[in-house]
């Protein structure tokens, strides 16, 4: 008899998902430890779930952050733009204006709230699913779109697939298509910050699936050995294309708890709770800046959209699974909270959505006027030979001549 065990998700297409018991026995009322706490003293945080907004949209517990009304409303606004931007770009991909797109629907808080809690000097080593960082830091939508359209104004000069943004000025590292590579790089950036005696920290994001890469473990080891001032985020959206997080050895444990073995505190949080992301980021950044090293943060969330425009999730998971996700939607939750707080209203929200829809639409029209992948308005062809090195080699010069440009 074949005794090899192969994990399987609870629900497949056609099943009725039920997550009611998912959090039974999980501590959701965690203390806020001192920033110099030892990893072993934070076991509960690695296995529990930090939340600030409860299911009724009320604040509770020790992690309630000190955050201004302006910051709250900016966070809401940035999440709303991110979602409208994603929807628009996906539609434009569908009609053939670009080759590829990838949304972050349901995960907006993870990028936007963490960016809000970081300082502008802090460096972000994101995966391809944190476009919210760029939006929160004010990267122009037009620039983002020009890149996705691979047009004459593309910051990557047509060399990269859409969504592989780069923005050194905004302290946002060039996105790699090879999973996980940014993880140890962020640690190295943080080591350099410490070396130079500076206060900037690095933050990096990878998916649940990507914790299986060599890079994750290499990054963890270096972060621990050198007490690098880094925030190490695992976005556990339950899926890695068609593979559920059990294929990243997530069953019966948490990704946050992986920190403990490396001597790094791990905190799992409700990734659909803007305030929880904000609060834990503040704590981890303060810890890093004070010289106590890295924190591994697991953002527990759900990938509400398809993996990308090349993917059809109805082939491997129940079509409406996200509707059963017990932690709701990050935008709805923050919106309900600010309304309850009396600083926002349905009417204002409607107006905001309308305004952003127009902003995104106008930016897109403008971007399209610079060309699309199919229209042929691209950077000069000769640029394909540039930036291999600072100076082209003689071989590259010869090849360029051979191409006749």
């Amino acid at each position: 008899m074949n005794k090899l065990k192969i994990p399987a998700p609870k629900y497949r297409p056609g099943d009725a998902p039920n997550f009611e018991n998912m959090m039974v026995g999980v501590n959701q009322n965690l203390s806020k430890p001192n920033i110099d706490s030892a990893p072993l003293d934070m076991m509960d945080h690695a296995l529990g779930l930090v939340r600030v907004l409860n299911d009724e949209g009320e604040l509770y517990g020790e992690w309630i952050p000190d955050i201004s009304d302006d910051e709250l409303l900016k966070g809401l606004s940035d999440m709303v733009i991110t979602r409208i931007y994603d929807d628009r770009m996906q539609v434009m991909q569908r009609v053939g204006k670009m080759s590829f797109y990838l949304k972050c629907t349901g995960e907006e808080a993870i990028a936007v709230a963490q960016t809000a809690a970081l300082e502008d000097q802090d460096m972000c080593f994101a995966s391809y699913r944190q476009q919210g960082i760029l939006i929160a830091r004010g990267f122009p939508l037009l620039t983002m779109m020009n890149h996705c359209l691979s047009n004459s104004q593309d910051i990557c000069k047509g060399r990269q697939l859409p969504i592989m943004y780069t923005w050194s000025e905004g302290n946002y590292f060039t996105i790699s298509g090879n999973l996980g590579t940014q993880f140890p790089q962020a640690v190295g950036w943080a080591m350099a910050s410490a070396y130079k005696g500076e206060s900037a920290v690095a933050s990096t994001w990878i998916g649940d699936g990507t914790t299986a890469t060599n890079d994750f473990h290499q990054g963890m080891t270096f972060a621990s050995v050198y007490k690098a001032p880094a925030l190490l985020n695992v976005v556990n959206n339950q899926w890695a294309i068609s593979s559920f997080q059990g294929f990243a050895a997530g069953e019966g444990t948490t990704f946050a708890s992986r920190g403990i073995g490396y001597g790094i505190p791990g905190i799992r949080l409700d990734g659909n709770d803007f305030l929880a992301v904000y609060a834990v980021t503040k704590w981890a950044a303060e810890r890093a800046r004070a010289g106590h090293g890295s924190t591994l943060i697991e953002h527990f969330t759900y990938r509400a959209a398809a993996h990308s425009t090349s993917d059809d999730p109805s082939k491997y998971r129940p079509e409406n699974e996200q509707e059963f996700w017990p932690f709701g939607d990050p935008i709805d939750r923050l919106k309900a909270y600010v309304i309850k707080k009396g600083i926002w209203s349905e009417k204002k929200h409607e107006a905001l959505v309308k305004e952003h829809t127009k902003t995104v639409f106008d930016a897109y029209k403008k971007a399209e006027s610079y060309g699309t992948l199919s229209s042929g308005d691209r950077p000069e062809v000769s640029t394909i030979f540039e930036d291999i090195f600072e100076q082209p080699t003689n071989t590259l010069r010869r090849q360029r001549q051979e191409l006749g440009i």
Partner: protein
Amino acid sequence: MTQMNMIQAINSAHENLLERDKSVVVFGEDAGYFGGVFNATEGLQEKFGKQRCFDTPISEGGIIGAAIGMAVNGLKPLVEIQFSDYIYPGFDQIVSEAARIRYRSAADFTVPLTIRTPCGGGIRGGQTHSQSPEAIFTHVSGLKTIMVSNPYDAKGLLIAAVEDPDPVIFFEPKRLYNGPFSGDPAAPSQSWENHEFGDVPEKYYSLPLGKARVVKEGADLSIITYGTMVHVSLAAAEKSGLDVEVIDLRTLSPIDLETITASVQKTGRCLVVHEATFTGGYGGEILSLIQENCFYNLEAPIRRVAGWDIPYPHAFEWEYFPGLDRVVRAINIVMEG
């Protein structure tokens, strides 16, 4: 015989292998339940059970390392690396381990392992879904390297790779999955239907490793090529109006020197074509072998057509791709030379 595209042929090879040999086991990222991002393993888990075809963590080093361990313990792993652009985290396990275990242990341990991986561009995949890294592997002793160009060969050679007692890297040009490609992106896309090599037996068969195929006979000039460029070379041969011989290497290592030298000794002119970058590409090796074996038969310098020495640029795919015009131009230069 049945009409199959290259994915169907590869899928059929898996099916035959899994049916015939209990020790064959198939795995890779998204390769189990979902059947792979290109559907190469579709339906296998359902048919053979989840222990014979399963998903893996996103760890190419883990996939190959575990496959080596399984091979050493009597299984015949047939694994998928989702894109050859993502094979590098498994590089150490391939180069330092799989390729050397037989030698370093004086055949005390051996590694019957097959690694399948889609390669090549032409699908707007950008620089991380388009590379052709074959020369990195042909450089390693102890590895066999294959790149197929049609459904019939894909099935027969994949079965041969799994039957082989040593590690084999099996490259599948993804641009050819649905049909041959003449190198002109503006031309209507072709399918394998009614193509000579789209006719694939459903039953188990294998083709010999290390044997090239003369795809088209000719007297004026030999094109030595493989993968997607076989079809581009055929189209260029036709466009040139000359009597060009086109050789599809199929197995890059071990290389079929006899077929190459017989051809070049006959024609006296030779062009080597591949999609991978030029410098250090496998073309250099082919050229050296021809120089060593056919020098006195040559009537003109041998030329190479290859990708430029740059990453595959997303919006400039067709400027990178060594397409029809570049191959025709090179044919003419070699003819004049």
